[in-house]
């Protein structure tokens, strides 16, 4: 496959004895957007954690390749160089991304500084604006505890995108947002990623968001990728029974009672 940025090869991983990922095969091209859809506990977040090299997850077999290099067991310095600048991450719980008591500005400055980037207020407010956070200057002077979960979530997306990663990993980033905000944020995030040719690997149970942003969708169930294909094909001509069930369970406007 051309320009494959991230490649997951037959990955099996476990928490302790419990296998959570089973023989996962997935390649993501430069600038491509792939969504992992499944229920909670299906393993979609674990797949992100495996790419990030989170310590409590043990890789039993298989590999993770980034830009052709095996990063499955990368640690220390090599891992630090990858995370942030190359592979960005927005966790599900936005409160976990920030110190609740420090102003955003100080925290985002620190994050940028530690990756050797300079703080450019124009650039920062522009990105906040794109994520529908108006009055960016004022927001940057606020502290996370003063903001709603949804605003914190968008701040976390902004700070990840400011590092200009080549691929952004997102875990359920819209679950704290209401539909209107989710639709806007998703649209803007999609445009931002397209402009910058940032690849996107997003775990979600929201098929509507995947429909809007994904080039391809992978359906995860019980640690296995049960179906993987182009977004349109998955949504309009699913092959697996489980995918069909998922699609049927999504409420649709104007479909009667």
């Amino acid at each position: 496959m051309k320009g494959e940025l991230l490649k997951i090869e037959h990955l099996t991983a476990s928490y302790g004895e419990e296998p959570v990922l089973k023989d996962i095969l997935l390649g993501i091209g430069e600038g491509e957007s792939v969504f992992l859809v499944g229920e909670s506990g299906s393993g979609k977040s674990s797949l992100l954690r495996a790419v990030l090299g989170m310590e409590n997850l043990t890789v039993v077999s298989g590999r993770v390749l980034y830009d052709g290099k095996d990063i499955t067991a990368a640690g220390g310095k090599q891992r630090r160089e990858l995370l942030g600048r190359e592979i960005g991450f927005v966790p599900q719980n936005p409160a976990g991304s920030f110190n609740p008591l420090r102003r955003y500005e100080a925290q985002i400055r620190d994050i940028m500084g530690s990756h050797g980037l300079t703080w450019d207020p124009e650039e920062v407010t522009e990105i906040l604006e794109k994520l529908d956070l108006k009055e960016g200057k004022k927001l940057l002077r606020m502290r996370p505890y003063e903001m709603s979960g949804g605003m914190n979530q968008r701040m976390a997306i902004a700070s990840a995108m400011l590092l200009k990663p080549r691929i952004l990993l997102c875990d359920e980033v819209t679950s704290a947002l209401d539909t209107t905000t989710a639709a806007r944020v998703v649209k803007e995030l999609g445009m931002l990623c397209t402009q910058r040719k940032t690849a996107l690997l997003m775990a979600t149970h929201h098929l509507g968001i995947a429909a809007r942003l994904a080039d391809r969708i992978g359906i995860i169930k019980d640690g296995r990728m049960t179906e993987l294909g182009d977004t349109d094909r998955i949504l309009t001509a699913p092959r697996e029974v489980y995918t069909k069930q998922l699609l049927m369970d999504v409420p649709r406007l104007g479909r009667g009672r």
Partner: protein
Amino acid sequence: MQEGMQENCVLRGENIYKTYDRDSSITEALKNVSFYLQKGEILGIAGESGSGKSTLLRTVCGLEKADTGKIFAGGEELPAGDARYAGRYMQMIFQDAYASFDPGRTMRKSLTEFMAPEKSSPGGGSNERILSLLYETGLTADLLDRHPAALSGGQCQRMSIARALLTGADILLCDEITSALDVSTQARVAELLLRLKRQKGISILLVSHDLALISQLCDRVMIMKDGAVLEEGNTREVLERPRSQYTNELLAAARELELPEVK
């Protein structure tokens, strides 16, 4: 029966105002909100975060006290801000079901505590009632010995519905009760609400920001913004021919995330 109260009206709010005084600035959370709910009906309340929809539910069930306005249930006016009194008619179901239960208690303990005293006869009577409600809410008896953390999100939400019905109340006030759940679990809980409405005549106020869910479940819908009701009516009519610009905007956002039809 109160004057003007329709025969099958089980819950009614009249000109409810509610303000919060925080840091010397006053927020108008509810501005002259009126509504009615008929027996066996599901009334949807839609709006974005901050629209006042949750505050309305909390005020109706007495968790908050309205500044002015009246709430009627079962043909009587309810004392303002008295959740215990309102509890004989209605029970609130929250988004975070786990937080609704004591984490250190088994489900059996949590459930029996909330039973209407007159309905828990000595001996096996209360147990039978619990078992039949578990059955009606799609749960099994073995779950009674578990603590909330050992239940799935869907099971825990069903438990909170079962517990609400155990009190003898036949009105449920549901605040985003499916938004923390997976698509499939959400669909099963939605089916449960419809079944309770059809088979037991349960009446429901359903707060949600998900218009697709509302279109699937609700007989009528009320659109709220900044503490005020913008429009109200038959769900299909409101969603097909919205009168307010704001409803149009909500619909546009919902359509953005709408899935194509499976071929």
